[in-house]
């Protein structure tokens, strides 16, 4: 509601100088006409009526034309439409354009109305056409100056209107966005102003001088006055005309100059103040400085600059804070990373050395694995040979066992035979012993018989020697039998021991064969495993060689990384210092919210 009230009537207020300027111009033109136009007697009121009629008509048309260009502002002032940003921006554009509109309208109406008044007055009976033409000339002479005056006055009001519209609900940037700043016609305006301000008085003076000259010539021709009287009268009369008309024109020109100066000076002063404020670092509320042409471009640029500066400062402040925090974290992280990189470099150096040692060990292991593989193959061959030998040995043992068993059986049989022989020899020995006793008794009986029994005794003695010989032989045989028995017993025991030994030997050979089978199997597995180990160790050797090379490359890269980290840490420290300086610099600017 308050917004609508603020804008109420502004559409009429802003163009009010147009009507006032027209009236001032009419007064000036009438005064000038009074001095310079020969009004036919009896037509004064008609002439005045023509002027009033056409002026009223022109003013009405002009007001209507100007108001038609302020329709949005009028609707906003009447609350006929909501004060949206778009409507307000349209109103701003209308207010910004209305000075030029009033200038063109006034100038056109001055030309048209002057011509119409002159033509209408010339149509009055007894009025020479020169009088009508002169009226039209006066209108053409005064029109530009008054139109310029109106322009400058309306321009001041239009700026006030723009400020009020902006205060209603537009930000400076929205006002800047609403107003095109491409038109740079300050030089044209100054040229036009200078031309009008100079040409209008000059043409008036020239016109007055021409009219005075014509009057003087006519008076002298008529002989009404003496040249001295005429000169005196002319001087006095011309002075009054010059003072009245010239003073009024001069006042208008000075007023125009003052308005023009204010039109340019006031915005520039505000711009200067705003620039000083920005220079002092007080930002945040850019002031709208309504202006035109290059000044408006400067104002818009200043507003945009301040807004962008505020935005940039806000972002810069946030960024500076974030950069500060981030750089501090980066510095801390860089220090940690640097320390970590240093430790990593050391660890990698140790790891690289260990890897190289591992690679050497892997090569040595691979070589040893190759040797072990050859040894395993040799062991496998030896085990196979041992297995065959053990098999042959086992068969031999079996044959020996069988042979021993045969020998044992033979010895047992032999022992039995020897025992039989012993019993026989014992029997023979008993017979021999008895024969010996019989021979002894026979010899004894022969001896008892004397010479008669001598032959008997000899036979008995021979028998006895024979028996003793037999007994001696049987004793020898018994001794031999005992030896044979002992030998056979020893042989039996030996063969039994041999059989047992061959049994245990065959069992042992069997176990040896089985063990060798296992050994061969294990040797096969061992050989395969050793081959796999050899292959794996060769692959491991290749892997460890590649690992050692990779570790060397990683170590080099890590050392480069550590150097880069150190440089990055230094850069981060510099960045942190720069961030501090940035925050200090940004903190000098105060952004008012």
């Amino acid at each position, binding site marked *: 509601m308050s917004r609508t009230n603020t804008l109420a009537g502004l559409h009429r207020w802003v163009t009010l100088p147009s009507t006032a300027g027209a009236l001032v111009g009419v007064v000036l033109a009438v005064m000038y006409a009074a001095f310079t136009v020969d009004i036919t007697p009896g037509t004064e009121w008609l002439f005045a009526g023509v002027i009033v009629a056409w002026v009223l008509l022109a003013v009405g048309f002009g007001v209507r034309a100007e108001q038609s260009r302020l329709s949005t502002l009028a609707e906003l002032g009447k609350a006929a439409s909501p004060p949206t940003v778009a409507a307000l921006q349209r109103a701003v554009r209308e207010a910004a354009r209305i000075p030029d509109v009033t200038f063109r309208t006034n100038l056109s109406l001055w030309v048209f109305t002057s011509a119409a008044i002159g033509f209408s007055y010339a149509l009055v009976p007894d009025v020479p056409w020169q009088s009508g033409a002169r009226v039209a000339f006066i209108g053409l002479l005064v029109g530009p100056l008054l139109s310029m005056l109106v322009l400058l006055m309306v321009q001041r009001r239009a700026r006030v209107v723009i400020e009020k519209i902006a205060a209603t609900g537009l930000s400076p940037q929205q006002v800047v966005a609403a107003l095109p700043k491409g038109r740079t016609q300050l030089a044209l305006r100054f040229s036009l102003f200078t031309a009008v301000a100079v040409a209008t008085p000059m043409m008036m003076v020239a016109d007055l001088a021409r009219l005075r000259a014509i009057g003087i010539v006519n008076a002298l021709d008529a002989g009404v006055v003496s040249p001295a009287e005429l000169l005196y009268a002319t001087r006095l009369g011309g002075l009054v005309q010059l003072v009245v008309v010239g003073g009024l024109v001069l006042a208008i020109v000075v007023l125009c100059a003052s308005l023009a100066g204010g039109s340019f000076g006031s915005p520039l002063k505000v711009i200067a103040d705003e620039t000083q404020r920005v220079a002092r670092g007080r930002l945040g509320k850019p002031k709208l400085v309504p202006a035109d042409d290059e000044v408006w471009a400067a104002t818009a640029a200043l507003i945009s600059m301040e807004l962008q500066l505020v935005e940039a400062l806000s972002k810069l402040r946030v960024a500076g804070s974030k950069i500060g925090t981030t750089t501090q974290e980066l510095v801390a992280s860089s220090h940690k990373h640097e320390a970590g990189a240093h430790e990593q470099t050391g660890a990698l150096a140790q790891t690289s050395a260990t890897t190289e040692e591992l690679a050497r060990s892997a090569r040595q292991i691979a070589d040893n694995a190759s040797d072990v593989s050859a040894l395993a193959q040799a062991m496998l061959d030896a085990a196979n040979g041992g297995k065959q030998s053990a098999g042959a040995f086992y068969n031999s043992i079996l044959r020996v066992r069988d042979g021993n068993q045969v020998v044992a059986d033979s010895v047992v049989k032999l022992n039995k035979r020897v025992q039989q022989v012993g019993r026989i020899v014992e029997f023979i020995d008993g017979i021999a*012993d008895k024969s010996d*006793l019989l021979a*002894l*008794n026979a*010899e*004894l009986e*022969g*001896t*008892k018989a*004397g010479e008669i*029994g*001598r032959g008997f*005794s*000899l036979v*008995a*003695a021979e028998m*006895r020697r024979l028996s003793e010989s037999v007994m001696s032989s049987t004793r020898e045989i018994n001794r031999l039998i005992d030896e044979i028995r002992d030998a056979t017993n020893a042989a039996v025991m030996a063969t039994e021991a041999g059989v047992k030994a061959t049994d245990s030997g065959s069992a042992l050979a069997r176990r040896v064969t089985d063990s060798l089978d296992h050994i061969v199997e294990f040797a096969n597995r061992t050989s395969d495993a050793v081959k796999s180990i050899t292959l794996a160790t060769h692959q491991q050797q290749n892997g460890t060689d590649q690992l050692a090379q990779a570790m060397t490359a990683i170590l080099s890269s890590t050392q480069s990384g550590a150097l880069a980290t150190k440089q990055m840490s230094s850069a981060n420290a510099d960045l942190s210092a720069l961030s501090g300086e940035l925050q200090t610099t940004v903190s000098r600017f105060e952004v008012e919210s």
Partner: protein
Amino acid sequence: MNPAHEIEGLVLCQAGGFRFAFAAATIASIGAWELSSGEVPLARTAFGLPPVPGKLITDERSALVVDSLEVAAGRYPLLGVPVVLSRTAGGSLAGFVATADGPVPLLKLTEFSAFVSGQGAH
């Protein structure tokens, strides 16, 4: 030399390392003796020697075991026994017989067997 001082046929015996003889006419038989054959007087006992298997000689009343013996046919001079030796060995010494190997004491089987038995009883 007095023919009464000769003797016909001898049984030459040994016990241990000692030699002695009996008149063949006084010996009835000769047999074998083993340690398991029962108690019989052993000539080794007279010499303080342990028993060993030997020959058993017997007459009608006694027996004696000797280590070995041989029968020697022929006639052999018999040397008389001095008085101081007449009661030697239980009075079994009958004299000394001269053999080719030297003099050998001639014993009487019954007395000597009794002497050995008496020694064994002691």
